[in-house]
Protein backbone atom coordinates (compact mmCIF):
# COMPACT_ATOMS: atom_id res chain seq x y z
CA UNK A 1 0.00 0.00 0.00
CA UNK A 2 2.78 2.35 0.99
CA UNK A 3 4.74 1.38 -2.08
CA UNK A 4 1.74 2.05 -4.29
CA UNK A 5 1.31 5.50 -2.84
CA UNK A 6 5.01 6.25 -3.33
CA UNK A 7 4.86 5.19 -6.95
CA UNK A 8 1.78 7.34 -7.46
CA UNK A 9 3.81 10.31 -6.23
CA UNK A 10 6.57 9.78 -8.76
CA UNK A 11 4.15 8.92 -11.55
CA UNK A 12 3.87 12.47 -12.96
CA UNK A 13 7.61 12.97 -13.23
CA UNK A 14 8.11 9.43 -14.52
CA UNK A 15 5.50 10.11 -17.22
CA UNK A 16 7.21 13.38 -18.14
CA UNK A 17 10.62 11.76 -18.37
CA UNK A 18 9.25 8.90 -20.43
CA UNK A 19 7.33 11.13 -22.83
CA UNK A 20 9.94 13.80 -23.34
CA UNK A 21 13.25 12.05 -22.77
CA UNK A 22 13.00 8.29 -23.18
CA UNK A 23 10.65 8.27 -26.18
CA UNK A 24 12.55 10.96 -28.12
CA UNK A 25 15.82 9.16 -27.45
CA UNK A 26 14.34 5.94 -28.80
CA UNK A 27 13.11 7.83 -31.85
CA UNK A 28 16.54 9.39 -32.35
CA UNK A 29 18.21 6.00 -31.88
CA UNK A 30 15.97 4.41 -34.53
CA UNK A 31 16.37 7.39 -36.84
CA UNK A 32 20.17 7.22 -36.62
CA UNK A 33 20.07 3.80 -38.24
CA UNK A 34 17.74 4.76 -41.11
CA UNK A 35 19.12 4.91 -44.62
CA UNK A 36 19.82 8.39 -46.01
CA UNK A 37 17.92 9.64 -49.03
CA UNK A 38 17.95 12.47 -51.56
CA UNK A 39 15.21 15.08 -51.41
CA UNK A 40 13.65 13.74 -48.23
CA UNK A 41 14.70 13.47 -44.57
CA UNK A 42 15.35 9.72 -44.68
CA UNK A 43 14.84 6.75 -46.95
CA UNK A 44 13.63 3.18 -46.80
CA UNK A 45 15.46 0.52 -44.81
CA UNK A 46 18.29 0.74 -42.33
CA UNK A 47 22.02 1.40 -42.58
CA UNK A 48 25.08 2.42 -40.58
CA UNK A 49 25.78 5.23 -43.01
CA UNK A 50 25.08 7.97 -40.42
CA UNK A 51 27.85 6.66 -38.17
CA UNK A 52 30.40 5.74 -40.82
CA UNK A 53 29.94 9.11 -42.52
CA UNK A 54 30.75 10.88 -39.26
CA UNK A 55 33.92 8.97 -38.53
CA UNK A 56 35.17 8.86 -42.15
CA UNK A 57 34.89 12.58 -42.79
CA UNK A 58 37.48 14.39 -40.70
CA UNK A 59 35.41 17.59 -41.05
CA UNK A 60 32.82 15.93 -38.84
CA UNK A 61 35.03 13.58 -36.83
CA UNK A 62 37.33 16.36 -35.69
CA UNK A 63 34.38 18.31 -34.28
CA UNK A 64 34.17 15.79 -31.46
CA UNK A 65 37.61 16.43 -29.89
CA UNK A 66 37.06 20.13 -30.59
CA UNK A 67 33.76 20.07 -28.67
CA UNK A 68 35.25 18.11 -25.78
CA UNK A 69 38.20 20.49 -25.69
CA UNK A 70 35.91 23.54 -25.52
CA UNK A 71 33.78 21.84 -22.86
CA UNK A 72 36.76 20.91 -20.69
CA UNK A 73 38.40 24.31 -21.10
CA UNK A 74 35.16 26.12 -20.21
CA UNK A 75 34.79 23.85 -17.16
CA UNK A 76 38.35 24.54 -16.05
CA UNK A 77 37.98 28.30 -16.54
CA UNK A 78 34.70 28.27 -14.61
CA UNK A 79 36.24 26.25 -11.78
CA UNK A 80 39.24 28.56 -11.46
CA UNK A 81 37.08 31.69 -11.60
CA UNK A 82 34.27 30.35 -9.44
CA UNK A 83 36.26 28.90 -6.56
CA UNK A 84 37.50 32.20 -5.09
CA UNK A 85 34.02 33.69 -5.57
CA UNK A 86 32.40 30.78 -3.75
CA UNK A 87 34.97 30.96 -0.96
CA UNK A 88 34.36 34.65 -0.59
CA UNK A 89 30.59 34.35 -0.47
CA UNK A 90 30.74 31.37 1.90
CA UNK A 91 32.64 33.45 4.44
CA UNK A 92 30.92 36.77 3.76
CA UNK A 93 28.55 38.27 6.31
CA UNK A 94 24.88 37.42 5.91
CA UNK A 95 23.99 40.88 4.69
CA UNK A 96 26.55 40.76 1.87
CA UNK A 97 25.73 37.21 0.92
CA UNK A 98 22.36 38.02 -0.66
CA UNK A 99 23.87 40.83 -2.70
CA UNK A 100 26.76 38.65 -3.90
CA UNK A 101 24.33 35.87 -4.77
CA UNK A 102 22.48 38.33 -6.97
CA UNK A 103 25.66 39.33 -8.76
CA UNK A 104 26.61 35.71 -9.38
CA UNK A 105 23.18 34.88 -10.77
CA UNK A 106 22.95 38.05 -12.87
CA UNK A 107 24.22 36.45 -16.15
CA UNK A 108 21.16 34.22 -16.07
CA UNK A 109 18.83 37.22 -16.04
CA UNK A 110 19.79 38.17 -19.59
CA UNK A 111 18.52 36.05 -22.48
CA UNK A 112 21.12 33.87 -24.15
CA UNK A 113 20.85 35.53 -27.58
CA UNK A 114 21.15 39.03 -26.15
CA UNK A 115 24.10 38.03 -24.03
CA UNK A 116 25.91 36.40 -26.94
CA UNK A 117 25.34 39.45 -29.14
CA UNK A 118 26.66 41.50 -26.26
CA UNK A 119 29.90 39.57 -26.44
CA UNK A 120 30.14 40.13 -30.19
CA UNK A 121 29.84 43.86 -29.59
CA UNK A 122 32.72 43.67 -27.13
CA UNK A 123 34.95 41.19 -28.93
CA UNK A 124 34.40 41.91 -32.63
CA UNK A 125 37.16 43.24 -34.91
CA UNK A 126 35.57 46.67 -34.75
CA UNK A 127 34.13 45.97 -31.36
CA UNK A 128 34.51 47.98 -28.17
CA UNK A 129 37.77 46.37 -27.02
CA UNK A 130 39.57 46.41 -30.36
CA UNK A 131 38.53 49.93 -31.31
CA UNK A 132 39.52 51.25 -27.89
CA UNK A 133 42.93 49.65 -28.11
CA UNK A 134 43.35 50.93 -31.64
CA UNK A 135 42.35 54.46 -30.69
CA UNK A 136 44.87 54.36 -27.88
CA UNK A 137 47.47 53.35 -30.44
CA UNK A 138 48.33 50.15 -28.61
CA UNK A 139 47.58 47.89 -31.57
CA UNK A 140 47.56 48.28 -35.37
CA UNK A 141 45.55 45.25 -36.40
CA UNK A 142 42.53 44.09 -34.37
CA UNK A 143 43.20 41.27 -31.89
CA UNK A 144 41.42 38.01 -32.80
CA UNK A 145 39.03 37.96 -29.86
CA UNK A 146 36.09 36.18 -31.43
CA UNK A 147 35.35 33.63 -34.15
CA UNK A 148 37.84 31.44 -32.28
CA UNK A 149 38.10 29.19 -29.22
CA UNK A 150 39.06 32.09 -26.99
CA UNK A 151 35.87 34.05 -27.59
CA UNK A 152 33.64 30.98 -27.33
CA UNK A 153 35.20 29.79 -24.07
CA UNK A 154 35.02 33.30 -22.64
CA UNK A 155 31.34 33.70 -23.48
CA UNK A 156 30.46 30.18 -22.32
CA UNK A 157 32.34 30.62 -19.04
CA UNK A 158 30.43 33.84 -18.46
CA UNK A 159 27.07 32.12 -18.85
CA UNK A 160 27.87 29.00 -16.91
CA UNK A 161 29.77 30.54 -14.00
CA UNK A 162 26.70 30.47 -11.72
CA UNK A 163 26.33 26.74 -12.33
CA UNK A 164 29.81 26.31 -10.91
CA UNK A 165 29.55 28.84 -8.09
CA UNK A 166 26.33 27.49 -6.60
CA UNK A 167 27.36 23.85 -6.05
CA UNK A 168 30.77 25.01 -4.76
CA UNK A 169 29.07 27.42 -2.42
CA UNK A 170 26.73 24.83 -0.98
CA UNK A 171 29.65 22.43 -0.48
CA UNK A 172 31.69 25.12 1.27
CA UNK A 173 28.80 26.21 3.44
CA UNK A 174 28.15 22.62 4.48
CA UNK A 175 31.71 22.45 5.76
CA UNK A 176 32.18 22.76 9.52
CA UNK A 177 34.18 26.00 9.99
CA UNK A 178 35.88 24.37 12.98
CA UNK A 179 37.78 21.98 10.72
CA UNK A 180 39.93 24.76 9.30
CA UNK A 181 40.61 25.90 12.87
CA UNK A 182 41.47 22.33 13.79
CA UNK A 183 43.91 22.19 10.87
CA UNK A 184 45.51 25.46 11.98
CA UNK A 185 45.85 24.25 15.55
CA UNK A 186 47.63 21.18 14.16
CA UNK A 187 50.17 23.46 12.53
CA UNK A 188 48.93 23.80 8.93
CA UNK A 189 49.48 27.03 7.02
CA UNK A 190 46.63 28.65 5.12
CA UNK A 191 47.79 27.27 1.79
CA UNK A 192 48.22 23.77 3.18
CA UNK A 193 44.74 23.99 4.69
CA UNK A 194 43.30 24.90 1.31
CA UNK A 195 45.20 22.13 -0.48
CA UNK A 196 44.69 19.37 2.07
CA UNK A 197 41.41 20.26 3.76
CA UNK A 198 39.17 22.92 2.19
CA UNK A 199 39.49 21.82 -1.42
CA UNK A 200 39.16 18.07 -0.84
CA UNK A 201 36.22 18.61 1.51
CA UNK A 202 34.48 20.75 -1.14
CA UNK A 203 35.02 17.97 -3.71
CA UNK A 204 31.32 17.02 -3.94
CA UNK A 205 30.64 20.59 -5.07
CA UNK A 206 33.58 20.60 -7.48
CA UNK A 207 32.33 17.36 -8.95
CA UNK A 208 28.74 18.41 -9.52
CA UNK A 209 29.72 21.91 -10.70
CA UNK A 210 32.18 20.52 -13.25
CA UNK A 211 29.75 17.93 -14.61
CA UNK A 212 27.01 20.54 -14.88
CA UNK A 213 29.15 23.10 -16.69
CA UNK A 214 30.75 20.52 -18.96
CA UNK A 215 27.44 19.06 -20.09
CA UNK A 216 25.91 22.52 -20.60
CA UNK A 217 28.98 23.77 -22.49
CA UNK A 218 29.24 20.93 -25.01
CA UNK A 219 25.53 21.02 -25.74
CA UNK A 220 25.26 24.78 -26.10
CA UNK A 221 24.32 26.10 -29.52
CA UNK A 222 23.58 29.82 -29.55
CA UNK A 223 26.85 31.04 -28.01
CA UNK A 224 29.23 28.99 -30.20
CA UNK A 225 27.11 29.88 -33.22
CA UNK A 226 27.16 33.63 -32.60
CA UNK A 227 30.52 34.20 -30.90
CA UNK A 228 32.22 31.42 -32.89
CA UNK A 229 30.58 32.64 -36.06
CA UNK A 230 30.41 29.07 -37.48
CA UNK A 231 34.17 29.07 -37.60
CA UNK A 232 34.40 27.10 -34.35
CA UNK A 233 32.87 23.79 -35.39
CA UNK A 234 31.29 22.01 -32.46
CA UNK A 235 29.38 18.79 -32.91
CA UNK A 236 26.26 20.50 -31.63
CA UNK A 237 26.43 23.03 -34.46
CA UNK A 238 26.89 20.25 -37.00
CA UNK A 239 23.92 18.33 -35.57
CA UNK A 240 21.63 21.32 -36.04
CA UNK A 241 23.14 21.92 -39.48
CA UNK A 242 22.47 18.31 -40.54
CA UNK A 243 18.95 18.18 -39.15
CA UNK A 244 17.64 21.58 -40.17
CA UNK A 245 19.73 22.87 -43.06
CA UNK A 246 20.77 19.71 -44.86
CA UNK A 247 17.69 17.76 -43.88
CA UNK A 248 19.68 14.60 -43.19
CA UNK A 249 17.87 13.18 -40.22
CA UNK A 250 19.72 9.84 -39.90
CA UNK A 251 23.11 11.57 -40.01
CA UNK A 252 22.03 14.28 -37.55
CA UNK A 253 20.61 11.69 -35.17
CA UNK A 254 23.77 9.61 -35.34
CA UNK A 255 25.90 12.66 -34.53
CA UNK A 256 23.63 13.63 -31.65
CA UNK A 257 23.97 10.15 -30.19
CA UNK A 258 27.74 10.08 -30.70
CA UNK A 259 27.97 13.38 -28.84
CA UNK A 260 25.71 12.18 -26.01
CA UNK A 261 27.64 8.93 -25.58
CA UNK A 262 31.00 10.72 -25.69
CA UNK A 263 29.82 13.22 -23.09
CA UNK A 264 28.59 10.33 -20.96
CA UNK A 265 31.98 8.64 -21.18
CA UNK A 266 33.84 11.84 -20.24
CA UNK A 267 31.53 12.39 -17.28
CA UNK A 268 31.95 8.79 -16.14
CA UNK A 269 35.75 9.02 -16.35
CA UNK A 270 35.66 12.31 -14.44
CA UNK A 271 33.35 10.90 -11.76
CA UNK A 272 35.61 7.87 -11.44
CA UNK A 273 38.74 10.02 -11.10
CA UNK A 274 37.14 12.21 -8.45
CA UNK A 275 35.44 9.38 -6.60
CA UNK A 276 35.12 10.05 -2.87
CA UNK A 277 35.02 7.11 -0.52
CA UNK A 278 34.24 9.26 2.48
CA UNK A 279 30.83 10.74 1.67
Amino acid at each position, binding site marked *: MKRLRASLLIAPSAALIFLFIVLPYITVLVMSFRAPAEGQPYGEGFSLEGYTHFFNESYYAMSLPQTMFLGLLTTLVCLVLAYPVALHIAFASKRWRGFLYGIVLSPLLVGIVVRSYGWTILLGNSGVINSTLRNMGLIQKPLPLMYNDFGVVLALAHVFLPFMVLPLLSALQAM*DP*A*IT*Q*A*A*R*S*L*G*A*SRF*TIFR*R*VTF*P*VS*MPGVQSGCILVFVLAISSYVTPALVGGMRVKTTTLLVVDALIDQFQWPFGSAMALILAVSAGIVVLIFARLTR*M*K*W*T
Partner: protein
Amino acid sequence: MTEVSLLSLVKSYGKSIALKGISLSVGHGEFVSLLGPSGCGKSTTLKCIAGFEDISDGKILFDNTDISRRLPEQRDIGMVFQSYALFPHMTVAQNLAFGLEMRRVPKSEIATRVARAMEMVQLTPYAERFPKALSGGQQQRVALARALVIEPAILLLDEPLANLDAKLRDEMRGFIRDLQKRVGITTIYVTHDQGEAMTMSDRVVVMFDGEIAQAAPPEEVYNHPASERVARFVGNANILDLAVTGKDAAGSDLALPGGGALRVDSPAPWANGRLRVMARPEQIALTDPGAGHLGGEISKRYFSGGHVEYHVDTQCGPLVVLGPTTQTVAEGQTVALAFDPARLWPIPDPKGPAQ
Protein backbone atom coordinates in the same frame (compact mmCIF):
# COMPACT_ATOMS: atom_id res chain seq x y z
CA MET B 1 54.40 20.39 30.36
CA THR B 2 53.70 24.03 30.11
CA GLU B 3 52.49 26.76 32.38
CA VAL B 4 49.93 29.12 30.88
CA SER B 5 49.54 32.67 32.17
CA LEU B 6 46.91 35.16 31.10
CA LEU B 7 47.84 38.68 32.08
CA SER B 8 44.98 41.24 32.07
CA LEU B 9 43.51 39.82 28.90
CA VAL B 10 41.14 42.23 27.19
CA LYS B 11 39.07 41.45 24.15
CA SER B 12 36.68 43.95 22.67
CA TYR B 13 34.55 43.87 19.55
CA GLY B 14 34.11 47.51 18.71
CA LYS B 15 32.25 48.95 21.68
CA SER B 16 31.27 45.68 23.35
CA ILE B 17 33.88 44.22 25.65
CA ALA B 18 33.97 40.43 25.77
CA LEU B 19 36.86 40.09 28.21
CA LYS B 20 37.47 42.78 30.80
CA GLY B 21 41.01 41.99 31.90
CA ILE B 22 41.30 38.30 32.68
CA SER B 23 44.28 37.20 34.73
CA LEU B 24 44.79 33.52 35.33
CA SER B 25 47.68 31.17 35.79
CA VAL B 26 47.41 27.49 34.92
CA GLY B 27 50.16 25.32 36.35
CA HIS B 28 52.12 22.40 34.89
CA GLY B 29 49.77 19.53 34.16
CA GLU B 30 46.84 21.26 35.78
CA PHE B 31 43.27 20.69 34.56
CA VAL B 32 41.38 23.98 34.72
CA SER B 33 37.77 24.46 33.65
CA LEU B 34 36.32 27.74 32.49
CA LEU B 35 32.72 27.62 33.66
CA GLY B 36 29.96 30.11 33.03
CA PRO B 37 26.72 30.84 31.21
CA SER B 38 26.80 31.47 27.47
CA GLY B 39 28.26 34.86 26.62
CA CYS B 40 30.39 35.01 29.77
CA GLY B 41 33.61 35.02 27.73
CA LYS B 42 34.82 31.51 28.45
CA SER B 43 34.93 30.48 24.79
CA THR B 44 36.45 33.81 23.82
CA THR B 45 39.20 33.22 26.38
CA LEU B 46 39.90 29.82 24.86
CA LYS B 47 39.95 31.22 21.32
CA CYS B 48 42.40 33.90 22.43
CA ILE B 49 44.68 31.26 23.92
CA ALA B 50 44.41 29.18 20.73
CA GLY B 51 45.05 32.28 18.63
CA PHE B 52 41.78 32.23 16.70
CA GLU B 53 40.94 35.61 18.20
CA ASP B 54 43.34 38.53 18.44
CA ILE B 55 43.55 40.02 21.87
CA SER B 56 42.90 43.72 22.34
CA ASP B 57 45.18 44.10 25.34
CA GLY B 58 47.15 42.04 27.82
CA LYS B 59 49.45 39.09 27.31
CA ILE B 60 49.36 35.33 27.02
CA LEU B 61 52.44 33.50 28.23
CA PHE B 62 53.38 29.87 27.69
CA ASP B 63 56.20 29.14 30.15
CA ASN B 64 57.07 32.84 30.38
CA THR B 65 57.26 33.21 26.59
CA ASP B 66 54.85 35.78 25.21
CA ILE B 67 52.89 34.06 22.45
CA SER B 68 50.11 36.68 22.17
CA ARG B 69 51.12 37.68 18.65
CA ARG B 70 51.82 34.21 17.30
CA LEU B 71 49.59 32.59 14.68
CA PRO B 72 47.53 29.61 15.86
CA GLU B 73 49.66 27.21 13.80
CA GLN B 74 52.75 28.40 15.66
CA ARG B 75 51.40 28.04 19.18
CA ASP B 76 51.83 24.29 19.65
CA ILE B 77 48.36 23.64 20.99
CA GLY B 78 46.09 20.64 20.80
CA MET B 79 42.46 21.60 20.45
CA VAL B 80 39.24 19.61 20.69
CA PHE B 81 36.06 21.17 19.34
CA GLN B 82 32.43 20.76 20.25
CA SER B 83 31.69 19.58 16.69
CA TYR B 84 34.76 17.26 16.81
CA ALA B 85 35.95 18.96 13.58
CA LEU B 86 37.43 15.78 12.17
CA PHE B 87 38.58 15.89 8.55
CA PRO B 88 35.72 14.04 6.86
CA HIS B 89 37.79 12.99 3.84
CA MET B 90 40.53 11.35 5.90
CA THR B 91 40.47 8.05 7.73
CA VAL B 92 40.99 7.91 11.48
CA ALA B 93 44.69 7.13 10.94
CA GLN B 94 45.05 9.98 8.43
CA ASN B 95 43.34 12.40 10.80
CA LEU B 96 45.84 11.51 13.51
CA ALA B 97 48.80 11.67 11.11
CA PHE B 98 47.90 15.17 9.84
CA GLY B 99 49.45 17.15 12.69
CA LEU B 100 52.60 15.03 12.63
CA GLU B 101 52.96 15.55 8.88
CA MET B 102 52.70 19.30 9.45
CA ARG B 103 55.59 18.94 11.90
CA ARG B 104 57.60 17.01 9.31
CA VAL B 105 57.93 13.98 11.54
CA PRO B 106 59.55 11.07 9.63
CA LYS B 107 57.06 8.61 8.11
CA SER B 108 58.08 5.61 10.20
CA GLU B 109 57.75 7.61 13.40
CA ILE B 110 54.33 8.89 12.32
CA ALA B 111 53.13 5.30 11.94
CA THR B 112 54.26 4.28 15.42
CA ARG B 113 52.94 7.43 17.10
CA VAL B 114 49.57 7.19 15.36
CA ALA B 115 49.31 3.52 16.35
CA ARG B 116 50.13 4.39 19.95
CA ALA B 117 47.58 7.24 20.01
CA MET B 118 44.86 5.01 18.60
CA GLU B 119 45.60 2.45 21.26
CA MET B 120 45.42 5.16 23.91
CA VAL B 121 41.83 6.02 22.91
CA GLN B 122 40.94 2.38 22.14
CA LEU B 123 40.26 2.94 18.46
CA THR B 124 42.86 0.66 16.87
CA PRO B 125 40.25 -1.44 14.99
CA TYR B 126 38.84 1.72 13.39
CA ALA B 127 42.08 3.02 11.85
CA GLU B 128 40.88 2.79 8.26
CA ARG B 129 37.34 4.05 8.88
CA PHE B 130 36.14 7.47 7.81
CA PRO B 131 34.70 9.70 10.57
CA LYS B 132 31.18 9.33 9.18
CA ALA B 133 31.24 5.64 10.02
CA LEU B 134 31.94 6.30 13.72
CA SER B 135 29.59 7.09 16.61
CA GLY B 136 29.69 10.49 18.32
CA GLY B 137 31.71 9.15 21.24
CA GLN B 138 34.21 7.47 18.93
CA GLN B 139 34.56 10.65 16.87
CA GLN B 140 35.26 12.61 20.02
CA ARG B 141 37.94 10.11 21.00
CA VAL B 142 39.53 10.51 17.55
CA ALA B 143 39.47 14.28 18.05
CA LEU B 144 41.13 13.87 21.43
CA ALA B 145 43.79 11.55 20.04
CA ARG B 146 44.41 13.89 17.09
CA ALA B 147 44.99 16.77 19.51
CA LEU B 148 47.28 14.73 21.77
CA VAL B 149 49.33 12.80 19.21
CA ILE B 150 51.31 15.93 18.33
CA GLU B 151 52.31 16.19 22.01
CA PRO B 152 51.28 19.83 22.24
CA ALA B 153 52.31 22.23 24.97
CA ILE B 154 48.71 22.57 26.15
CA LEU B 155 45.38 20.95 25.48
CA LEU B 156 42.31 23.11 24.90
CA LEU B 157 38.82 21.63 24.94
CA ASP B 158 35.79 23.63 23.84
CA GLU B 159 32.61 22.02 25.24
CA PRO B 160 33.73 18.66 23.87
CA LEU B 161 30.89 16.67 25.44
CA ALA B 162 27.98 18.97 24.59
CA ASN B 163 26.89 16.93 21.56
CA LEU B 164 26.90 13.56 23.32
CA ASP B 165 23.98 11.91 25.09
CA ALA B 166 23.95 11.85 28.87
CA LYS B 167 25.29 8.35 29.49
CA LEU B 168 28.14 8.69 27.01
CA ARG B 169 28.92 12.11 28.47
CA ASP B 170 29.46 10.58 31.91
CA GLU B 171 31.77 7.94 30.45
CA MET B 172 33.74 10.49 28.47
CA ARG B 173 34.21 12.68 31.55
CA GLY B 174 36.09 9.92 33.29
CA PHE B 175 37.90 8.98 30.08
CA ILE B 176 39.18 12.50 29.44
CA ARG B 177 40.12 12.98 33.07
CA ASP B 178 42.10 9.73 33.24
CA LEU B 179 43.80 10.39 29.93
CA GLN B 180 44.77 13.90 30.97
CA LYS B 181 46.30 12.65 34.22
CA ARG B 182 48.16 9.87 32.40
CA VAL B 183 49.58 12.22 29.77
CA GLY B 184 50.11 14.95 32.35
CA ILE B 185 49.29 17.75 29.93
CA THR B 186 48.25 21.24 30.99
CA THR B 187 44.56 21.42 30.08
CA ILE B 188 41.98 24.18 29.77
CA TYR B 189 38.42 22.99 29.45
CA VAL B 190 35.47 25.19 28.55
CA THR B 191 32.00 24.14 29.68
CA HIS B 192 28.67 25.54 30.82
CA ASP B 193 27.94 22.33 32.72
CA GLN B 194 28.89 22.77 36.37
CA GLY B 195 28.80 19.01 37.00
CA GLU B 196 31.36 18.48 34.26
CA ALA B 197 33.59 21.24 35.61
CA MET B 198 33.41 19.91 39.17
CA THR B 199 34.09 16.26 38.45
CA MET B 200 36.97 16.78 36.04
CA SER B 201 38.93 19.81 37.14
CA ASP B 202 41.73 20.55 39.54
CA ARG B 203 40.47 24.10 39.53
CA VAL B 204 37.23 25.69 38.37
CA VAL B 205 37.24 29.23 37.01
CA VAL B 206 33.75 30.70 37.17
CA MET B 207 33.21 33.54 34.71
CA PHE B 208 30.43 36.10 34.39
CA ASP B 209 30.22 39.01 31.94
CA GLY B 210 33.81 38.78 30.76
CA GLU B 211 35.29 38.62 34.24
CA ILE B 212 36.53 35.89 36.54
CA ALA B 213 34.18 35.63 39.51
CA GLN B 214 36.13 32.90 41.28
CA ALA B 215 39.01 30.58 40.53
CA ALA B 216 39.37 27.78 43.04
CA PRO B 217 39.28 23.99 43.47
CA PRO B 218 35.81 22.47 42.93
CA GLU B 219 35.11 21.92 46.66
CA GLU B 220 36.01 25.49 47.42
CA VAL B 221 33.80 26.90 44.66
CA TYR B 222 30.93 24.69 45.78
CA ASN B 223 31.19 25.18 49.52
CA HIS B 224 32.63 28.69 49.68
CA PRO B 225 31.41 30.59 46.62
CA ALA B 226 32.84 34.05 46.28
CA SER B 227 29.49 35.63 45.52
CA GLU B 228 25.80 34.92 45.48
CA ARG B 229 25.90 34.61 41.69
CA VAL B 230 28.60 31.95 41.87
CA ALA B 231 26.63 30.17 44.59
CA ARG B 232 23.54 30.04 42.43
CA PHE B 233 25.36 29.10 39.21
CA VAL B 234 27.32 26.25 40.76
CA GLY B 235 24.74 23.84 42.10
CA ASN B 236 21.58 24.60 44.01
CA ALA B 237 21.89 27.31 46.66
CA ASN B 238 19.63 28.41 49.49
CA ILE B 239 20.44 31.97 50.43
CA LEU B 240 19.14 33.23 53.79
CA ASP B 241 19.19 36.92 54.56
CA LEU B 242 19.55 37.09 58.37
CA ALA B 243 19.87 39.83 61.00
CA VAL B 244 23.12 39.96 62.95
CA THR B 245 22.44 40.17 66.70
CA GLY B 246 26.03 40.24 67.86
CA LYS B 247 29.56 39.68 66.70
CA ASP B 248 32.99 39.14 68.11
CA ALA B 249 36.37 38.16 66.72
CA ALA B 250 35.34 34.51 66.28
CA GLY B 251 32.01 34.91 64.57
CA SER B 252 28.56 36.39 64.35
CA ASP B 253 25.27 35.56 66.03
CA LEU B 254 22.33 35.42 63.66
CA ALA B 255 18.63 35.53 64.38
CA LEU B 256 16.21 33.48 62.34
CA PRO B 257 12.57 34.44 61.95
CA GLY B 258 10.50 32.46 64.46
CA GLY B 259 13.05 32.72 67.26
CA GLY B 260 15.82 30.41 66.04
CA ALA B 261 19.43 31.47 66.49
CA LEU B 262 22.64 30.47 64.73
CA ARG B 263 26.29 31.28 65.10
CA VAL B 264 28.57 31.31 62.09
CA ASP B 265 32.27 31.94 61.63
CA SER B 266 32.24 35.26 59.92
CA PRO B 267 34.47 38.25 59.90
CA ALA B 268 31.78 40.86 59.47
CA PRO B 269 28.14 41.39 58.59
CA TRP B 270 27.05 43.22 55.46
CA ALA B 271 26.79 46.97 55.54
CA ASN B 272 23.11 46.90 56.54
CA GLY B 273 23.81 44.87 59.68
CA ARG B 274 22.59 41.70 58.12
CA LEU B 275 24.38 38.65 56.76
CA ARG B 276 23.58 36.54 53.72
CA VAL B 277 24.43 32.92 54.33
CA MET B 278 24.33 30.01 51.91
CA ALA B 279 23.26 26.47 52.72
CA ARG B 280 23.41 23.73 50.09
CA PRO B 281 20.24 21.55 49.94
CA GLU B 282 22.07 18.48 51.27
CA GLN B 283 23.43 20.50 54.21
CA ILE B 284 19.97 21.05 55.67
CA ALA B 285 18.19 18.36 57.67
CA LEU B 286 14.42 18.00 58.03
CA THR B 287 13.32 17.53 61.64
CA ASP B 288 10.08 17.54 63.63
CA PRO B 289 8.34 20.88 64.09
CA GLY B 290 9.63 22.63 67.16
CA ALA B 291 13.12 21.22 66.84
CA GLY B 292 15.67 22.71 64.39
CA HIS B 293 16.25 26.36 63.56
CA LEU B 294 13.50 27.34 61.18
CA GLY B 295 9.92 26.23 60.73
CA GLY B 296 8.35 25.52 57.36
CA GLU B 297 5.88 23.58 55.28
CA ILE B 298 6.66 21.09 52.49
CA SER B 299 5.21 22.48 49.28
CA LYS B 300 6.68 19.97 46.81
CA ARG B 301 8.33 16.60 47.07
CA TYR B 302 10.30 15.04 44.22
CA PHE B 303 11.68 11.53 44.44
CA SER B 304 14.76 11.13 42.29
CA GLY B 305 16.19 7.71 43.07
CA GLY B 306 19.15 8.43 45.29
CA HIS B 307 17.45 11.08 47.38
CA VAL B 308 14.30 13.13 47.79
CA GLU B 309 14.10 16.81 46.94
CA TYR B 310 11.78 18.93 49.11
CA HIS B 311 10.67 22.45 48.41
CA VAL B 312 9.95 24.05 51.77
CA ASP B 313 8.09 27.33 52.33
CA THR B 314 9.68 29.19 55.23
CA GLN B 315 9.75 32.70 56.60
CA CYS B 316 13.08 33.06 54.84
CA GLY B 317 11.43 32.27 51.54
CA PRO B 318 11.23 28.99 49.65
CA LEU B 319 14.18 26.69 50.37
CA VAL B 320 15.28 23.44 48.75
CA VAL B 321 16.29 20.51 50.93
CA LEU B 322 17.69 17.13 49.91
CA GLY B 323 16.65 14.34 52.24
CA PRO B 324 17.45 10.64 52.42
CA THR B 325 14.95 8.25 50.85
CA THR B 326 14.58 6.50 54.21
CA GLN B 327 12.81 9.56 55.60
CA THR B 328 9.14 9.92 54.65
CA VAL B 329 7.76 13.42 54.74
CA ALA B 330 4.62 14.23 52.77
CA GLU B 331 3.67 17.38 50.86
CA GLY B 332 1.81 19.82 53.09
CA GLN B 333 3.47 18.56 56.25
CA THR B 334 4.83 21.08 58.76
CA VAL B 335 8.52 20.55 59.50
CA ALA B 336 11.53 22.31 60.93
CA LEU B 337 14.88 22.77 59.24
CA ALA B 338 18.14 22.17 61.05
CA PHE B 339 21.30 23.84 59.76
CA ASP B 340 24.85 22.77 60.40
CA PRO B 341 26.47 26.05 61.54
CA ALA B 342 29.93 24.82 60.53
CA ARG B 343 28.82 24.39 56.92
CA LEU B 344 26.81 27.58 56.53
CA TRP B 345 28.75 29.91 54.29
CA PRO B 346 28.48 33.65 54.87
CA ILE B 347 28.62 35.19 51.42
CA PRO B 348 31.16 38.02 51.19
CA ASP B 349 29.69 41.50 50.82
CA PRO B 350 30.31 42.65 47.23
CA LYS B 351 30.82 46.19 48.59
CA GLY B 352 33.60 44.91 50.85
CA PRO B 353 33.38 44.02 54.55
CA ALA B 354 31.52 46.47 56.79
CA GLN B 355 33.55 47.95 59.61
